[in-house]
């Protein structure tokens, strides 16, 4: 799963530690999510979406770069 966490964080001039504190996780977890080594749970993804004031699919994408909106357009879905 890919994500825009690093970009969104940089836009707001937040450090990994500040974001980690705001999401109540460790800095290591933020780093692992940003580098794509770890996929967050739905609960954590919701927390991140709330913090950035965005929808989950605007932050997290599957490997093909499709968010939930694009997937809904799939005729086979």
């Amino acid at each position, binding site marked *: 799963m890919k994500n825009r966490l690093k970009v969104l964080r940089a836009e707001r001039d937040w450090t990994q530690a500040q974001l980690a504190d705001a999401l109540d996780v460790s800095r290591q977890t933020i*780093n692992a999510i940003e580098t794509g080594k770890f996929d967050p749970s739905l609960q954590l993804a919701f927390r991140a979406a709330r913090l950035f004031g965005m929808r989950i699919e605007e932050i997290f994408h599957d490997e093909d770069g499709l968010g939930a909106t694009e997937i809904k357009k799939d005729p086979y879905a």
Partner: protein
Amino acid sequence: MNQLSPPGSGYESRIRTNMIRLACWNGAWIGTCALMSFGPKLLWNRALLLTLLAVGTNVGVGVGMLLSNKKYVEGLDELQRKVYLNALAITVGVGLIAGVPISVMAGYHVIPCKADIAYLMMLMSLTFLVSMLYGTRRYR
């Protein structure tokens, strides 16, 4: 643009507190293990009541350590919990895989040494340590 508070007040400090508490319980448990093992011979000349008291203290402190460990794991975030549980799974597996054959071989005198539980504990401790280090480095 949203402003966040400076880091250090939330998760990290809570984990540090839980870790210190767990370390204290671990230290206390090791202390009561030593008391239970060496006390009867070295301190109170095998007095039964004091030996039972030492055993009871060890079990009580052991329960405290267990609860403290549970609280520590519950306080971890999802990645760190995953690393911890992976390390625990590997440790239990290695303990079983190594423990049973050694016990059988010692029973049939295939190996010269006694299958002491202390060896198994040392092996499991080392396995857990290496697994935790590997897991932590993997997600760094």
